[in-house]
């Protein structure tokens, strides 16, 4: 039986990709950003932790989808995906290979569980998906795990509530546990933490709010799932709303235990957050 063994959350700031792609990781600006991933790189390389499959929850930033189609929840079911050209050329990263059997199984189970997923068979994947892979796996010739992409609309309102995202995670967990082959599965939540990329209020960062959010991933998940959109917008900036995607990860875990935390300001316009959670019982 497949099993979710851990949850990993990380910001997916495009600049992290720039740092890696352009070999700037040792520059003073980037050093503290990447230092916080060293622990995770070592942890994930150990055979007992190495995932067969990563379910990677992210949002498309007007790359695969324009305004013509706006799925609230979508799942990538194709065999593979390519890095998108977001206006400065595609990131030079390996092709993303899916576990299509598991992806279709999750899609079926989620829909039967009343989460009306959009099934995606053709798309390019942008920094939302590729930056977390690079931050944690570095620059391998091929990615060491298969990736099931789950996309959440966090751009065009109304978007799904935090609680709905949490329940989606619960449903993903049930689907994974019903999959008949032995797989070590991790679920990654990406985006955030506090940041605002628009208007005169751009540059907003709320370190206290972010740290409490990180604490409550283990201390008080019930509080996190009830945070309304307006609180994210006021406290964590207009793009801080991406944190609802961490709640998909959280919903798929049971009594998680914190193994590692990294928090750094700034990465570009953003408060960078990263946490590794071991799944409990």
């Amino acid at each position, binding site marked *: 039986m497949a099993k979710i063994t851990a949850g990993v959350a990380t910001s997916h700031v495009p*600049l992290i990709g720039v740092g890696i792609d352009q070999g700037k990781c040792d520059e003073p600006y980037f050093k503290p950003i990447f230092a916080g991933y060293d622990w995770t790189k070592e942890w994930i390389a150990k055979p007992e932790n190495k995932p067969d499959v990563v379910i990677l929850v992210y949002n498309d930033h*007007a790359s695969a989808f*324009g305004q013509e189609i706006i799925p609230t929840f979508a799942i990538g079911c194709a065999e593979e995906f390519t890095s998108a050209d977001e206006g400065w050329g595609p990131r030079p990263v390996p092709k993303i290979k899916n576990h299509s059997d598991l992806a279709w199984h999750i899609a079926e189970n989620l829909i039967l569980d009343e989460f009306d997923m959009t099934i995606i068979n053709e798309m390019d994947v942008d920094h939302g998906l590729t930056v977390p892979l690079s931050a944690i796996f570095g620059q391998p010739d091929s990615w060491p795990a298969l990736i099931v992409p789950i996309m959440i609309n966090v751009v065009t309102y109304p978007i799904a509530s935090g609680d709905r995202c949490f329940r989606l995670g619960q449903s993903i967990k049930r689907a994974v546990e019903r999959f008949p082959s032995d797989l070590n599965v991790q679920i990654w939540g990406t985006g955030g933490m506090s940041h*605002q*990329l628009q208007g*005169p209020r*751009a540059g907003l960062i709320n370190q206290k709010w972010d740290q409490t959010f990180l604490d409550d991933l283990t201390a008080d998940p019930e509080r996190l799932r009830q945070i309304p959109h*307006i609180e994210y917008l006021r406290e964590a900036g207009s793009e801080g709303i991406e944190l609802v995607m961490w709640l998909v990860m959280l919903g798929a875990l049971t009594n998680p235990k914190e193994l590692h935390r990294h928090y750094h300001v700034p990465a570009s*316009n953003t408060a960078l957050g990263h946490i590794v959670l071991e799944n409990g019982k």
Partner: protein
Amino acid sequence: MERNNQDYKAAFGDIPGTLVFTAERARKGYWLNQFCMSLMKPENRKRWLANEQDYLRDWKITAEQKAALLARDYNQLLALGGNIYYLAKVFSTDGLSFVQAVSTMTGMTVEDYQAMMAAGGRSPDGVRSIKEGK
């Protein structure tokens, strides 16, 4: 749970210096944002940079939106229905980073904006709510 959708949306208007990308804005900015998507292709970026006015002729974009695009007035583009992830295609084509482009919306120089970020970013104190001034 009963949810008041009017209150849900009305609260978005109470955040200083912020335009939430609501359905109304998405409708208003549809072609503006779709134009931005066209810049994901290198051949279109080349055509756009060679002659912006000419490129815009093919798009159902209002005169106001066109003027804001040509002026790279990002606050105005947001007000006219643009969304930052779409507009990113325009500033990326100009060779600007997110920090460089985003700083233009704040009334700060890029250097001052970067210094603010390096010092921990903009505090939420005083910019959470227009009504409550906190």
